[in-house]
């Protein structure tokens, strides 16, 4: 008998809903951007992009890198000599890596990160990684993955990174008891909260992947039950399954409902009884629900439009529509993984407009026609849309802020209510005529 909150599927849901697939200009980051949070997570890893000045400029512009004395990422900038064949790219790479590791002895894991230029010139980074690994092991493990824009969109960079790390996970013993692994980067504070919930349920040794340190890689094998914490880990899932691990299908841990269902999937698989589950989750659940009440006042009935960004859009839309009463005008996502998102799609209200990929000009036209109350978009679009009179929420903040789990549910809602509240507060102030003209010009120019 299950006393846990029964999840009500949305009437109809979006399981078989049509998806508008678009091609054209994409206003999204490439996978290299994932380095910004991955290097914070794995504290002894270094990310060396093998690419162009554009790659270096992208990462520093997206990350605001100047705050770091010496960041744990860098770009080996390919120059003319490398392209003309005057310098052997592999020799050059070895030289750069040797210099880097000599300078940074604390580094235990080095990722060579492929970029658009390195992919196009077909620089074989997997061979380079093997070669360098054999040179620097056991002190430094060298791996490679591609974060290039021609292959990866924004958060897919993390997927590629984690997938490259899976073969290095130690094998679990053949007779090992079932073990739970949470896959996908979560903020440390969120990880600690989940750890406490799991251990209160009697699940003492839950592994998190990626780990905070390179020497604490969790073991994997047929006993592994893994739970995706992020919706963008398609290749990582495939790699884990190749090692025998089993995926626990669940919605993602955003909002009270998502978090409960996500934890429930783990509890069920690991044989936690229903009473215990209820006992452990109820206090946090109630706290989160009451915190959401205040947010619901701000957000209920408001229309929201998602431009594609992080692949978090569908779980976010589910949370905002079901727990906060928002209305979904369009939910755009760079890539829709039907299998991993099946539990999410089932919960979306029927008739939600879903789009995959992007043609930014067409999508802007649809957004203007829809006149939503709030638009979720990248930094390149936010101010121009604000100038047109839309309220926007920077999508990137949803990736950099801890938003998963019960304790963050209200914070997540607040990320959407704050821009609305702000507009409401300052819109009553008189503005000089010049601002009106600036805004009008931007509409005319758009």
């Amino acid at each position, binding site marked *: 008998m299950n006393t846990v909150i029964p999840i009500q599927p949305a009437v109809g849901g979006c399981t078989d809903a049509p998806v508008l697939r678009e091609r054209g*200009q*994409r206003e999204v980051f*490439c996978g290299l951007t994932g380095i910004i949070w991955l290097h914070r997570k794995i504290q002894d890893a270094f990310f060396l992009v093998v690419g*162009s000045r*554009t790659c270096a400029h992208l990462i520093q512009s997206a990350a605001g890198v100047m705050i770091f004395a010496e960041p744990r990422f860098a770009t080996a900038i390919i120059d003319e000599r*490398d*392209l003309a064949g005057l310098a052997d790219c592999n020799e050059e790479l070895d030289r750069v890596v040797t210099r880097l590791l000599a300078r940074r002895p604390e580094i235990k894991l080095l990722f060579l990160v492929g970029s658009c230029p390195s992919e196009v010139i077909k620089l074989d980074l997997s061979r380079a990684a093997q070669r360098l690994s054999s040179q620097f092991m056991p002190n430094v493990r060298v791996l490679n993955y591609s974060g290039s824009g021609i292959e990866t969109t924004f958060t897919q960079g993390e997927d590629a990174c984690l997938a490259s790390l899976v073969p290095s996970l130690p094998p679990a013993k053949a007779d090992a008891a079932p073990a739970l692994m949470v896959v996908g980067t979560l903020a440390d504070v969120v990880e600690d909260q989940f750890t406490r919930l799991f251990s209160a349920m009697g699940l003492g040794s839950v592994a998190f992947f990626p780990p905070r340190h390179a020497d604490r890689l969790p073991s994997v094998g047929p006993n592994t039950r893994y739970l995706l914490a992020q919706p963008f880990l398609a290749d990582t899932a495939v790699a884990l399954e190749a090692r025998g691990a089993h995926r626990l299908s669940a919605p993602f841990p955003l909002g009270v409902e998502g978090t409960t269902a996500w934890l429930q999937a783990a509890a069920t698989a690991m044989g936690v009884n229903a009473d215990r589950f209820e006992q452990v989750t109820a206090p946090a659940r109630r706290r989160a629900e009451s915190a959401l009440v205040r947010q619901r006042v701000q957000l209920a009935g408001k229309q929201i439009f998602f431009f594609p960004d992080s692949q978090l859009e569908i779980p976010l839309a589910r949370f905002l529509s079901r727990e906060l009463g928002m209305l979904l005008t369009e939910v755009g996502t760079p890539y829709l993984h039907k299998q991993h998102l099946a539990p999410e799609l089932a919960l979306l209200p029927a008739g939600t407009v879903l789009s995959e990929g992007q043609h930014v000009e067409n999508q802007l036209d649809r957004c203007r026609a829809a006149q939503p109350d709030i638009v979720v978009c990248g930094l*390149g679009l936010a101010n121009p849309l604000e100038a047109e009179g839309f309220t926007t929420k920077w999508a990137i903040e949803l990736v950099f802020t801890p938003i998963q789990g019960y304790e963050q549910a209200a914070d997540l809602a607040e990320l959407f209510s704050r821009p609305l509240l702000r507009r409401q507060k300052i819109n009553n102030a008189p503005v000089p005529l010049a601002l009106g003209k600036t805004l009008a010009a931007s509409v005319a120019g758009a």
Partner: protein
Amino acid sequence: MQLTLWTYEGPPHVGAMRIATAMEGVHYVLHAPQGDTYADLLFTMIQRDAKRPPVTYTTFQARDLGGDTAELFKNAAREAFERFRPQAMIVGASCTAELIQDDPGGLCKALNLPVPVVPLELPSYQRKENWGAAETFYQLVRHLADTSVRRAPRESGQRARCNILGPTALGFRHRDDLREITGLLTQMDIDINVTAPQGASPADLARLGDADFNVVLYPEIASIAAGWLKRTFGQPVTTVVPIGSGATCDFIREVAALAGVDPESVLDNPNARAPWYSRSVDSTYLTSKRVFVFGDATHVVAAARIAQDEMGFTVVGLGTYSREFAREVREAAQLYGVEALICDDYLDVEARIAELQPELVLGTQMERHIAKRLGIPCAVISAPVHVQDFPARYSPQMGFEGANVLFDTWVHPLMMGLEEHLIGMFRGDAEFHEDAAPSHLGGSVSRSAVGATQPAEDSAEVPDEAATAQADQAIAVAASSSAQVVATWSADAEKELKKIPFFVRGKARRNTEHYARDQGLPVITLETLYDAKAHHSR
């Protein structure tokens, strides 16, 4: 391959975007993979533009590479033209597209668009942002300037007319410099024919020839174009960049000579406060402050001149990341008897600053961080730009108002330093020592329980010492010298050192230890302390 942790300049196509975004009626079609659209946020978030940059990206993916990326480009260009209806288009490739060699210029020609299309060749693996901006501006001027439009010889009494060249989008204070210089030229009864690229349309570029001379504000951006205009239309070019009071006066005289007007009335500007402020007695403490200057060539050369001649500082080092202007910066360095650092690796810049131990750093946002780490006051004088470099208020670098702004901007961090010393001085007092709780909390709670054991007398020195230790460490790293041993202090010398006012104590300690090291003395005695003082005061 070059290991780069951080870069002063973006790739050259970002320079091209700065030109396109500055102009009206120009659209840039960029052959580029997904992700290169990050550059849009430089404009919408750093400069807070209310419009998207006029750029269309083709966004090709890996699966297109085997197919027809050229067709993708043609479709993007055609669609962009139909949607935005620009007066002219520029087309080019980002770093990745350069490798696949689709020839955007040739492809666009085949589209037969009814507007001029300017193809750009910007070698991404060789050049950088400022060069890209200069080349783009030059190509636009070359393609769009109508060579039949020429300025008729001026009759006597007819007002002179000039073009202002150089201000771009994402430029360091270009917005306010332009207003300042436009005002100055207007005051001199000179008409402005065209300002470009900022605010210019392709039609405006067509009439560039209809001016007597060109004012180049930023040589990094406009000198190639100005050179072509000089050869084509015979238009002379200004050579002085009006940053600083002295340079502004020189600029006024240079322009007056070109325009045939009297400079005197504008030279006498009652709002030029900076020259008087630096003569005011309270500025005496600025004398011979050791400064290090780093940034783009234009701002570095100008800042060094102001520092030495107008503020009475001593320039102990200067450098630039603008390799294209290395010669000009080396020449400037000779004026101050220092060697120019031509370099785009900020770690080398940091090592140089740590080694020189300046009292003020004038640099970019990166040098601001370096200076903060080393505990040295700093003011930002140059791009790369940061959101702070687009202040809401009017804050030019050029002209007399610019000189006022520079005076304030450079002097404030030094004054802040003094205030910190004051805080440090009073920290030694009975009611204001480190262990005392803040007065707003009643002052009765002792913090010593938390573990602060430092004697109050020494605590004044702590920030300075910490900074010194850090700097010394950096020097040690820079010089990778392991053999240098710091001499030990004898008790009486240490006691004497404490009598020296705290705000110079750190420096005295440093100088004495340096002296002892040079002299090979293992112990610093009272004698050593005063020998060192005499040595350093020479």
